[in-house]
């Protein structure tokens, strides 16, 4: 086939639709990513159903926008999954590999919709591979599923008689379910068109709603029909999909013995069938394991999709409200002093009551909006099973991944940032932590290693733990390594305790892998992971027991929008120093200050910290105020610590982080600004970069 790579592509959707298509496609692809791996062996039927539906939804949405390649590929995947779902075929490793390969291609194809450039992916081979996994069964002569029991569509006696008579003559009986896209202006006409298409292909035995209703133009957003036809189910499907505004089509052949039993609807919910159309699609609460395909009993939807930008906008508005509230309280205090003198106590009390109520409501509102930005951590965890499978296969290891606490919620902004570090830690756990099956057997452990990822909330933090039952960290290798790399003297390396040595894993320029495998290593190590986590005002801890395994625990704030900070004044500017990095704050007359080589040094718990003027370190060149440097704030980044001198301490505060704006840019040492109670602005110190820079300067 001639390559089409790089060609411009056209799709049938506008910008709004594009966003919805992408959201939906990402969601379904992620679901497949997370669950396909579990298909092997004896999977839970609910899970199979869920996977099938994801493929089916993708097929529907890609067909709606005219993405042929994607529709064809998802169709092939769906065919394979359908066979598994109906129990005609059980999934083996080959099938899962083919499905995963298809999934990778789908991801690229979905991206084409955004880039509008042909990625050059050939789907034909993938489709062939997929269908080959079924080859024992010809899809057209497949054994037919027995109709599920339960309330549903009941064939009339007349239909059953007609069907039985014809079925011997080469016709098959089909149960056809069609949904019309929810924003279709004239659903009744589309229903009628669908009916006409069906009439052209065979004999329509029965329809729901009734033929009369449809012909009278009273059809709705769905049409279900029993049809006798000599065509294949694919031909029927294709014929119906031609009709405009048709969302999902589901064709099932009905075996003779099932004719008398009621048919259960398999229709995908209309909203999901036309992702590109619904403006505010109602999303099912889709608890894992529930079969959303059956008529949803829990009234669909306790949730609504909201544009993140809109939420950010709301968040900003509430931020302003919070500031106004603070100002109002200040005005109230001033007013009440004046009004009390004027003997207007009643008025004062009323005013005070109103402002405190406003304050309570504002706090509540802020909290609620913050909550609405929270997502379950599940969306990150779903990617992990695939990753573990891939890495384990490459390293020739057997690894089982367990996850817990998927419902733990955290702010969207944190979710976006946490994914990469988590993936890195998990790769390390599989690549370096878990032993090969032989080694494990020799050590008396089960051949299959276990990696557990757990998420939980505690106070205003979220914790993520990655724990493996592998060999743990070999501190002997580590000690040799730090000496070899010149990071430490031999004496210092030997003198360190086990606990201290384990922490060296976070040192820059240290990789314990014997070779640079393509899995981890490459010089990008745990030091980068730690830097990234600390940039988010989080921290990372590591515990390890030789022979038993290791555990990495990440602690993160619930949201990046606000951060707890120590407020200080340096040269008449207010600065916020994130509390996570502050180890101590004290007045200089209490501090143990020494002069070493002409440099002021703070002795704090057996450590000597270089003392640095905060305003100078940030490049404040204005004349100094007289009260300069009366307090000391010890801050840390990793093992590095410095003591900043500041003029005044103002106390702790929750600060809302705001960008400094493009004109000012990313100024070194600052992460943003925050609005203070009096409406003026304070600057937020980037302790991570400032501490490492200053500690380096001091030792140089």
């Amino acid at each position, binding site marked *: 086939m001639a390559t089409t790579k790089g060609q411009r592509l056209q799709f049938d959707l506008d910008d709004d639709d594009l966003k919805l298509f992408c959201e939906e496609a990402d969601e379904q692809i992620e679901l497949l990513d997370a669950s396909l791996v579990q298909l092997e062996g004896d999977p839970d039927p609910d899970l199979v159903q869920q996977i099938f539906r994801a493929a089916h939804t993708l097929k529907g949405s890609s067909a709606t926008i005219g993405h042929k390649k994607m529709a064809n590929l998802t169709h092939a995947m769906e065919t394979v999954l359908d066979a598994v779902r109906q129990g005609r075929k059980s999934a083996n490793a080959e099938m899962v590999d083919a499905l995963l390969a298809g999934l990778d291609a789908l991801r690229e194809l979905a991206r084409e919709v955004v880039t509008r450039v042909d990625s050059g992916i050939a789907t034909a081979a993938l489709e062939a591979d997929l269908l080959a996994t079924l080859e024992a069964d010809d899809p057209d002569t497949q054994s037919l599923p027995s109709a599920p029991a339960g309330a549903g569509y009941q064939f009339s006696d007349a239909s059953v008689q007609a069907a039985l008579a014809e079925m011997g003559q080469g016709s098959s009986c089909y149960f056809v379910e069609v949904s019309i896209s929810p924003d279709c202006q004239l659903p009744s006409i589309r229903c009628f068109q669908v009916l006409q298409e069906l009439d052209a292909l065979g004999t329509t035995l029965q329809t729901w709603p009734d033929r009369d209703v449809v012909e009278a133009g009273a059809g709705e957003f769905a049409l279900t029909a029993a049809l006798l036809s000599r065509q294949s189910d694919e031909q029927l499907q294709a014929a119906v999909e031609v009709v405009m505004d048709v969302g999902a089509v589901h064709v099932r052949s009905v075996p003779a013995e099932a004719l008398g039993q009621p048919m259960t609807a398999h229709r995908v919910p209309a909203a999901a069938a036309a992702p590109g159309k619904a403006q505010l699609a109602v999303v099912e609460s889709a608890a894992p394991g529930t079969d959303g395909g059956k008529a949803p009993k829990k009234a669909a939807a306790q949730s609504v999709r909201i544009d993140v930008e809109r939420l950010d906008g709301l968040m900003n508005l509430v931020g302003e409200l919070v500031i106004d509230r603070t100002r109002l309280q200040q005005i109230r205090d001033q007013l009440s002093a004046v009004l009390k003198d004027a003997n207007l106590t009643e008025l004062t009390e009323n005013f005070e009551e109103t402002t405190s109520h406003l304050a309570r409501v504002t706090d509540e509102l802020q909290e609620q909006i913050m909550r609405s930005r929270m997502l379950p951590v599940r969306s990150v965890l779903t990617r992990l099973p695939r990753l573990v499978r891939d890495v384990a296969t490459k390293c020739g290891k057997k690894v089982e991944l367990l996850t817990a606490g998927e419902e733990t919620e955290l702010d969207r902004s944190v979710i976006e940032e946490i994914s990469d570090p988590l993936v890195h830690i998990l790769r390390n756990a599989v690549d370096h932590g878990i032993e090969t099956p032989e080694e494990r057997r020799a050590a008396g452990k089960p051949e299959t290693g276990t990696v557990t990822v757990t998420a939980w909330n505690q106070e205003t933090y979220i914790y993520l733990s990655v724990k493996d039952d592998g060999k743990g960290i070999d501190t002997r290798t580590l000690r040799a390594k730090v000496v070899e790399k010149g990071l430490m003297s031999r004496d210092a390396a030997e003198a360190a305790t086990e606990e201290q040595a384990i922490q060296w894993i976070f040192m820059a320029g240290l990789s314990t892998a014997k070779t640079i495998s393509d899995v981890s290593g490459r010089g990008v190590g745990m030091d980068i992971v730690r830097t990234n986590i600390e940039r988010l005002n989080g921290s990372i801890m590591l515990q390890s027991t030789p022979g038993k395994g290791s555990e990495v625990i990440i602690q993160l704030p619930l949201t990046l929008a606000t951060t707890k900070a120590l407020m200080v004044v340096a040269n008449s500017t207010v600065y916020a120093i994130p509390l996570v990095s502050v180890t101590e704050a004290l007045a200089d007359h209490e501090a143990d200050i020494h002069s070493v080589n002409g440099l002021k040094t703070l002795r704090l718990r057996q450590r000597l910290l270089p003392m640095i003027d905060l305003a100078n370190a940030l490049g*404040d060149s204005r004349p100094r105020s007289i009260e300069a440097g009366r307090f000391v704030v010890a801050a840390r980044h990793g093992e590095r610590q410095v003591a900043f001198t500041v003029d005044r301490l103002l106390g702790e505060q929750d600060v809302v982080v705001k960008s400094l704006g493009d004109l000012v840019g990313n100024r070194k040492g600052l992460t943003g600004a925050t609005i203070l109670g009096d409406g003026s602005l304070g600057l937020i110190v980037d302790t991570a970069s400032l501490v490492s820079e200053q500690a380096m300067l001091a030792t140089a």
Partner: protein
Amino acid sequence: MATRLDSTIEVTGQPAIEEHVVIFRLADEYYALDIQTVQEIVRMQAITSIPGSDFWVEGITNLRGRVVPVVDLRKRCGVDSGEYTAETRIVVVSSSTGMVGLIVDAVSEVMRIPGDQVEQPSAIVSVPENTYLRGIAKLEDRLVSLMDLDGVLPASAEGEFEYASAAAA
């Protein structure tokens, strides 16, 4: 440069096209900004200076919950800096680098200038660096420099940042 300005004037200054502008004063000179770019005009308010930033960046201010960088336009345009007075205003503009406040000595008026009263700067002043002037309007009583916002404000702080930190070191 001169040719570029020539063509700009020809295109934008087609006969009878008016310039709708906000006129403000820096020391004793008058300048004008396209009214489309001006978001609002506020009185002088508290500005937090940012250590290590360019000398003409006065700092940031809180505009109803938004953090807006503020530029001292006198310093930026090389006009002698002066004290802030009761007439000093911050002209908040929307530029390619986002919302920016410009400190000016006074805002005098909003007016329409007929296209035929606008001339290219080189006809009157010969300062090649004056990339932020896109034309000069000859009004009855005075000259008004039409300011090109993208010329006044750099597209991003990156380039200037290097310079600022080098100077600090």
